[in-house]
């Protein structure tokens, strides 16, 4: 589907969290179904809706700045990882916000 989607099966895409963790040293996360239904079934567990004030991102999550959906990886995310937001088709690169210290996603046009 996309070069940067973090699917578990098959060869990891270049730049994806899986490809950037060849020794498997990062924490793994089991992605359950959160009811997100805006992408084909196979990919739904990789996304969830942002619940607004009070919601918190886990270490494997980042918000898409274009459509505000939370993108979930099966591994801890680190700066430089490439992720894909299927609901809005944006290709994103994870970065560290120097002001807040939080991870954020930047759009790669």
């Amino acid at each position: 589907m996309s070069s940067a989607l973090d699917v578990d099966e098959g060869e990891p895409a270049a730049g994806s969290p899986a490809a950037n963790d060849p020794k498997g040293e990062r924490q793994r996360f089991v992605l359950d179904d959160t009811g997100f239904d805006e992408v084909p079934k196979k990919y739904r567990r990789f996304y969830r809706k942002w619940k607004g004030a009070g919601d918190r991102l886990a270490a494997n999550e980042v918000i898409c700045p274009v459509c505000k959906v939370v993108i979930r990886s099966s591994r801890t995310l680190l700066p430089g990882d490439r992720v894909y937001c299927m609901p809005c088709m944006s290709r994103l690169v994870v970065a560290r916000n120097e002001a807040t210290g939080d991870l954020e996603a930047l759009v790669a046009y």
Partner: protein
Amino acid sequence: MADFLSGYSIQNWLESCPQGYLEGTVYGHKPGEQEIELLKTNPVLHEDAIRTTVQLVVGERAALAASSGLINSAPDEASKRFLATQTLDEARHVEIFTQRLYDLGVRKEDLESTIARFANPNLVKFAGVLLEKVDKKDFVAGVVGQNIVLEGMAFSVFEMMYALNEPMNPKFAQTLSGTIADERRHVGFGENRIGSLLKEHPERKPDIEKMQKDMSYFMLATFADAFGETRAVDELERIGQERSHAQFHGADLGAMDPKEMEDLLAATVLKEFKTRLGRLGLQYQTPARP
């Protein structure tokens, strides 16, 4: 080339939309759900609901004209196919919001006269700026106007309306929720396609920035009219109906007067414009306050 669309297909759209969040719905909501009784029986709230829904129909008719008009000026096949699915999304939006007018009691033979009576003139001018670009087959300006300015505005407007309706009107809230899901794809296409096109055509930036300024002015004027005209808050207070304390960007909408809600919505949309345009290398142009 629209590389970001390499994973997009009609099949993807089918699995996400009709076989995803729209599965089992009728006109965007669960079968059998009805508008709340108060909206049908209270004359002030009834007219307010019709007036609001008319603006949605007017906005979506403009989006339908724009997205379909842009197909033939799109420079690549992938964009044409995306815009074909967007055209169907927008046609669906026109249909579901028109159906809401019928659900609120507007007769089919009165549809156009009702729209003509309640359509906000500033919203019509907002659409006119966009459709002028589309008519000239100006793809870059058309996509910025449609998929960034219009859809960006709709995204925040629908989210605020969803927050207001979720606790009390599940039928309309679900209708809005499906529309918001569609808007995600549309704003995503707008940003990603224009992000690459502006790299090829940086000379287009000043013209597009002026269009954004013009459209933003009419958008703010529409908000001012809409929140200035509403009598819903006063009427709810008069009849002793408690307002829902819905949250929108950290604010309690149930504790705000219409002017405060207008200011919050305008600030939210303009902040989003500024951020989105900034990512594309466009300079946000502050419009005059109507």
